[in-house]
C-alpha cells in the first residue's frame, strides 16, 4: 500500500508559485460547477453567466476597467510595502482620505474654470493619502508601533473623517440635509474614454503606476534595497541600507497611490462625496497582491479576476436569480484553494511505501 505524505522541498519551487494561482482557479471552477449543480442549475451555463457573460461586449470590458483601476492602484502600492515586509493594511484609509482631500479641493473650486483644476484636485488627493501613510510611518519609525494595528485603526478614523465631512461641512447646501456633497463641476471630473462608457483615464494612472513600480523594483538600487530589507533585515543592515528611510518610502508611496485611487474614484465614477465612496477596495487589494504573487503583472490579472467575480455575481442574480452570497463564496473558494495550493511551493507530495512493521522492527533490533 502507498502512503501520500508531504515533504519539504530543498528550496521553494518557482514554478509552483506561478502554477498555484492557476490550479486555484481551476479548482474554484470545478467546485463552482458542483455548487451550481447542487443549486439546480446547468453548471456550464451558470459558469458561463458568472465568468464569461459579463465580458461579452465592450461595455463589460470598460466596466471591468472601472473596478480594475482603483484595485490595481491600491494593490501596487501595497505590494511595495509587503516586499519590504511592512504589513500595511491601511490602503482603505488612504483611499478614503485621498477621496476626501481631493473632494474637498474640488468643492472649494466649484466655480473655478480651467484645465488646471483637475490636476490640482488629483494632486491634493494623492497628497492626502500620502500624509495618512506618513502617520503610520512616523508611529512605526519613531515609536516602534506595529503597523498592522495602526493602519487598521487609522482606517476607521479615515472613515469617520469622511462621515463627518459629508454629514457636516461638505454637505450639499441644496441637498435637504442628506449626507452627500454637491456634484463636482465638469472641470473637476475625470474625462471618460468614450461618452458611451464610464471608464475614465484613471485606468492609465493605474497602468502607469504598474510600469513605474515594476521598473523601480527590477531596475533600481532602491528597489533592490526594499527587496533585501524584506527578505533579510540583518543583511540589509549589514549592507548599510537605511531601514527607516525605506519604511518611510514604501508607506508614503502606497499612501499616495491609494490616495490617487480614492480621488480618481470620487472625481470619476461617483462625481461627488458620499459616505460609501469605497466598497472596500483597500481590503480587496490585499487579496489582489497575494493572488498576483507580489508581481506587477500578476497584480493586474488578479485585479481583473477579482473585479470579474463582483460583476459575475451581479449577472448570476439578474439572469439566474441566484443569491448575492455566491460572490462571497467564489472569492472565498479562490482564496482557500490558493492558500492550499501555495503549500506546494515549499512542499511536495511524495508517495512512500508503508513501512512493514516486522521488517522495520527487526532492522532496528539489529542496529
Amino acid at each position, binding site marked *: 500500500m502507498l502512503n501520500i505524505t508531504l515533504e519539504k522541498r530543498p528550496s521553494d519551487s518557482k514554478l509552483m508559485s506561478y502554477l498555484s494561482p492557476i490550479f486555484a482557479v481551476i479548482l474554484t471552477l470545478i467546485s463552482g460547477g458542483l455548487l451550481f449543480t447542487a443549486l439546480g442549475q446547468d453548471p456550464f451555463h451558470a459558469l458561463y453567466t458568472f465568468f464569461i457573460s459579463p465580458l461579452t*461586449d*465592450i*461595455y463589460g470590458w470598460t*466596466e471591468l476597467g*472601472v*473596478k480594475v483601476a482603483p484595485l490595481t492602484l491600491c494593490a501596487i502600492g501595497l505590494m511595495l510595502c509587503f516586499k519590504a515586509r511592512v504589513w500595511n493594511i491601511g490602503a482603505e484609509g488612504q483611499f478614503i482620505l485621498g477621496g476626501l482631500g481631493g473632494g474637498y479641493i474640488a468643492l472649494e473650486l466649484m466655480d473655478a474654470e480651467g484645465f488646471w483644476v483637475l490636476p490640482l484636485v488629483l494632486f491634493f488627493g494623492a497628497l492626502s493619502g500620502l500624509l495618512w501613510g506618513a502617520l503610520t510611518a512616523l508611529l512605526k519609525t519613531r515609536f516602534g508601533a506595529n503597523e498592522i494595528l495602526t493602519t487598521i485603526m487609522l482606517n476607521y478614523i479615515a472613515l469617520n473623517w469622511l*462621515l463627518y465631512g459629508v*454629514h*457636516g461641512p461638505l*454637505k450639499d447646501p441644496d*441637498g*435637504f*440635509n*442628506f*449626507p*452627500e456633497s454637491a*456634484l463636482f463641476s465638469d472641470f473637476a471630473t475625470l474625462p471618460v474614454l*468614450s461618452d*458611451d462608457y*464610464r471608464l475614465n483615464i484613471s485606468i492609465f494612472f493605474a497602468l502607469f503606476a504598474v510600469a513605474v513600480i515594476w521598473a523601480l523594483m527590477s531596475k533600481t538600487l532602491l528597489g533592490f534595497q526594499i527587496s533585501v530589507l524584506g527578505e533579510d533585515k540583518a543583511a540589509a543592515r549589514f549592507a548599510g541600507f537605511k531601514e527607516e528611510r525605506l519604511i518611510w518610502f514604501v508607506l508614503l508611496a502606497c499612501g499616495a497611490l491609494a490616495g490617487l485611487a480614492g480621488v480618481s*474614484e470620487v472625481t*470619476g*465614477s*461617483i*462625481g*461627488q462625496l*458620499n*459616505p*460609501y*465612496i*469605497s*466598497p472596500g477596495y483597500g481590503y480587496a487589494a490585499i487579496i489582489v497582491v497575494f493572488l498576483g504573487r507580489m508581481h506587477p503583472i500578476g497584480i493586474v490579472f488578479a485585479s481583473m479576476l477579482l473585479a470579474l467575480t*463582483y*460583476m459575475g455575481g*451581479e*449577472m448570476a*442574480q*439578474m439572469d439566474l*436569480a441566484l*443569491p*448575492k*452570497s455566491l460572490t462571497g463564496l467564489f472569492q472565498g473558494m479562490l482564496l482557500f484553494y490558493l492558500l492550499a495550493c501555495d503549500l506546494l511551493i515549499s512542499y511536495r507530495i511524495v508517495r512512500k511505501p508503508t513501512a512493514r512493521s516486522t521488517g522495520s522492527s527487526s532492522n532496528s533490533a539489529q542496529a
Partner: protein
Amino acid sequence: MRLNKLTQLAMTAALALGANIVSADEPLKVGFVYVGPTGDAGWSYGHDQGRKYIVEKFGDKIETNYVESVAEGADSERVIRQLAAKGHDLIFTTSFGYMNPTLKVAKRFKKVKFEHATGYKRGKNTGTYFARAYQGRYLTGLIAGKMTKTNVIGYVASFPIPEVIRGINAFTKGAVEANPDVTVKVVWASTWYDPAKEREAAETLMLQGADILTQHTDSAAVIQAAESKGNFAIGYHSDMSAYGAKAHLTSTVHNWGPLYAEKVQAVLDGTWKSEDLWPGIAEGVTDLAPLNDAIPADVKALVAKKKQAIKDGTIRVFDGPIFDQSGKEVVPAGSSLDDGALKSFNWYVKGVEGQLPKS
C-alpha cells in the same frame, strides 16, 4: 479604430431597437435593486414583499428580477444600467444612495421608467416615492409613552438625515402626548445594517434605564436585545414579532405592494408619469404590525382612534403646538409643519434627550 466605432454603432442600434419594440405578448420586465439582503425582515425584505405582491397580481403579464446587497457607491450604476440594458421597462431603485446613479442611467435609457425610493431628484423618466412612515412612528410613540414604567425610551438610530430625525420627532411627539414625563434617548449606530452594533446600542440604552426600545435600522437585533432582558421593543420596516414574541409590541411597517402595482399598471396602460409619491396610512402603504396582547385595551383603542383620525385627515402628526428642545414654540397651535419642512428636518422636538450631531 474604424471597426470599434462600427461595433459601437451596431450595439447602440441594437439597444435602441430592443428598447423600442414592446410587443403585446412580451411580458413587462420590472427590475428591483436592493441595498441589503432580502432576508426575513427589514427594509429590503419589505421591498421584495412588494415585488412578490405584483408577481401575484399581474401573473404572466410581467416578469420581475432583482439584485440584492448592491453597494451604494459606483457599483450601483453598473447594476442599474445592466438591468436597463437587459430590457427592463420599469426599474425600482430602493435606497437613497442610488439617486444620482439612477438619474445618470435614466438619461441614457430614455424609454425605461425609473422609480427611486427616498430621494428628492426627479427627471423626465425618473419618479420618486416614499412612505409616510412617521405616521406609524407617531402611533407607536403613543404606545411607548403609555407603557413605559421608567419614563425612559431608547431609540437606536442610523444616520442624522431628515428621514430619521422625522421618525424620532414623530415618535417622541406621540410618546410625550401620551405621557408628558417621557424622555427619548437616541444612540446613533452609524449604520443601516449591522446587527452587532445595533445590539450594542440597545444594551447601552437599557443600561441607561430605557424599558422600551425602538429602532431606525434594518435588523431585528434591537428586538432580540429587549427580549433577552425582558423589556419591550417596537420594530421597523417589517413585522419583527418572530424575533421576540414577548418583547415585540408592534412595528411600523411599509406595504409597498399596492404602490408598485399602481406603477406597473400605469406603465402597462401607457399613463406613467414622473411624480413624487408620498403615501401613508390613508393609502395603506404605512401600517402597524398586529399589536401585542400585552398592550392594554384602552391603549389599543387610543391607537385605533388616532389611526382613524390620520386616515380621515382630521389630524396630521406635526400639528402645533410643537416645541423645540429648549422649550421654544416653533409651530403655534392651529398650524402644522408642511411637507417641505418635514423633508428637511434638522432639529429635535421637546422630549428628545441629547444633541443632534452637529452639522
